[in-house]
């Protein structure tokens, strides 16, 4: 079952194309994230699903109904805005009950269901307060309750945690994910924060320049980026140009600078490819005459739980390496080190 389906959706403003042909299906109960840098078209896509922006081309179906040209109030869509957009002149209960009131639900019933929704977001007892009297995190939850209480076909969240501090943001992530699972709600989440996307989503669509660059599970997107853009956008990575030295079946030997690495994938000898190696997949140890890869530490960054080394290996290639902090025996710039790249760590981008 599909909750939302986008079919060739395009949005042009004058000569500028903000969204350039997006096809996307969001399943019932699925948590899908639109991820990308600012200006990639993710917010415009969300606005089109909500009905605030009309697409220049393409179709949008919500809950099995063609909603391409439907005004926002005729779509059964819940939306949570970055700045919450609560109604400051209404109590929290009235804020939450607003959608029910617009649907003609009787007063007592409204009050009961708003109370339930506030309980779901753990704000029981604050029903008669005004938005100006509660904290940012609490406002966020009210906004969530307000959008949920109408039992929307899909819940849309536009950078909802942008205004919260880090700790609160981390907690809200967990709460939102739990709530979404518990209620089985279909959800589209817009963010530019890849960590947020990875930690919550069932699937992620990475956007840039108005197009989906890759659509997949967090694990798939992180470990097997379809292109260099996705590889770079999803956290730190070593991206190395390489040439296939030898290929047989779905195994190949490639040379990247001074490194000779085994990779999987159907490649043809002599071809140019790009390799991605995540820094946390590379092992680092004391220099050892027998080691396959030797190098010298060029720089070190202390990140608390982990250490981030820059190592220049023989042949001049610089690699980023991230390891858990051992506490003692940290390398310092100038130290000779040996690196270990396990089988399967190098990934041929696009394969």
């Amino acid at each position, binding site marked *: 079952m599909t909750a939302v389906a986008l079919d060739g959706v395009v949005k042009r403003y004058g000569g500028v194309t903000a969204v350039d042909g997006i096809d996307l299906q969001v399943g019932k109960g699925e948590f899908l994230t639109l991820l990308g840098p600012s200006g990639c078209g993710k917010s415009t896509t969300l606005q089109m699903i*909500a*009905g*605030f922006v009309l697409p220049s081309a393409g179709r949008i179906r919500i809950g099995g109904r063609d909603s391409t040209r439907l*005004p*926002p*109030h005729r*779509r*059964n*869509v*819940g*939306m949570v*805005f*970055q*700045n919450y*957009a*609560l*109604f*400051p*002149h209404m109590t929290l209960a009235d804020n939450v009950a*607003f*959608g029910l009131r*617009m*649907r003609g639900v009787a007063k007592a019933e409204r009050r009961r269901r708003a109370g339930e929704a506030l309980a779901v977001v753990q704000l029981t007892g604050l029903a008669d307060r*005004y*938005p*100006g009297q509660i904290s940012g995190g609490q*406002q966020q939850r009210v*906004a969530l309750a*307000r*959008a949920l209480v*109408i039992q929307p076909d899909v819940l*849309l969240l536009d950078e909802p945690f942008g205004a919260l501090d880090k700790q609160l943001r981390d907690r809200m992530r967990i709460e939102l994910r739990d709530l979404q699972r518990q209620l089985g709600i279909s959800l589209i989440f817009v963010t530019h924060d890849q960590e947020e996307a990875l930690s919550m989503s069932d699937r992620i669509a990475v956007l840039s320049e108005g197009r989906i660059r890759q659509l997949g599970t967090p694990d798939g997107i992180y470990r097997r980026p379809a292109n260099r853009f996705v590889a770079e956008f999803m956290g730190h990575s070593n991206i190395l140009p390489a040439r296939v030295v030898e290929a047989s079946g779905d195994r190949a030997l490639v040379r990247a600078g001074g490194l000779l690495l085994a990779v999987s994938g159907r490649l043809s000898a002599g071809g140019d490819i790009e390799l991605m190696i995540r820094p946390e997949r590379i092992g680092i140890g004391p220099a050892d005459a027998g080691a396959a890869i030797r190098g010298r530490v060029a720089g070190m960054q202390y990140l608390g739980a982990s250490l981030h080394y820059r190592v220049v290996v023989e042949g001049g290639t610089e690699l980023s390496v991230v390891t858990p902090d051992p506490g003692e025996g940290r390398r310092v710039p100038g130290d000779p080190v040996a690196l270990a790249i396990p089988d399967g760590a190098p990934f041929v981008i696009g394969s």
Partner: protein
Amino acid sequence: MSPDRHPRAEAPDAAPPVRAWARIGRLRAWGLVLPAGVLYAVTFGIPLAMLLGASFARFQGGVTTPGFFLDNYVKIATDGVTLAVFRNTVSLSLLITAVGLACALPVAMLMRRAGPGLRLVAMFVLVSPLLTSIIVRNVAWMLILGRSGMINSWLIDAGLISAPLPLMYNRLGVVIAVVHVYLPFAVLPIYAALRAIDPARERAAASLGAAPWRVFVHVTLPLAAPGLIAAFTLLFILSMGLYLTPVILGGNFVVTLPMMITDAARNQYNWPYASAMSVLLLASIVAVVAVSAVLGRLFAVPRDA
């Protein structure tokens, strides 16, 4: 005096020094408004006191006797004319205010949506009547609303009417001309209030199922309430002081309290009575300002939520 200099042990209660600081701050603030205060006292306070004093003088046969007489206030209350004119002034002001707000709201909403260029044009068109002399403006309206004026000529030429419509020398003419010139005083506060509304709040309402008119009624209008109250107050107060336009476009049949005041002062040389009526007018305006201040507090919207 700084609370920071006291070790905590010696000053378990930090409130007194804090209060002292606040007091000094207040004194300084008063010091800053003192020049303006003195200016007001001299140019406004003293004449006002003189006006009040004059309203208790007695006027008989063209001769004014200073003193404390209630004659003028008794006359206001009992002559049957002054209070009727006062009521008429209030009802005319309410009518102008209502029509003005009804015209201003769509204009302000249009300006909110307009681009900077159109907004500038709208602003200029709105303010332009204020740059024209009141006489020129009213004479221009006479040319438009008159018996053989523009509107009547068009309507007759188009065969829609056979005899000219009475568009002026009545309340209608006064309301049209006054709303025309007072419109910016209503549009600007409403526009300012509308601009302060985060459009996301209206979108939120729409996404929750509110049709455009319900978004307007439940979200836009309540959030614009401070601007509407300000616009109401300004329009009403300005309208209570109307003199020339009712004279010219009302054909003197629309009588306002300022017209009676002028008549008493200029034609009867009865300054005590003119003063008493001015006090009544002033008191009614103060009352409206007070009511609007209370309303303003009731409808105050926490901006940052």
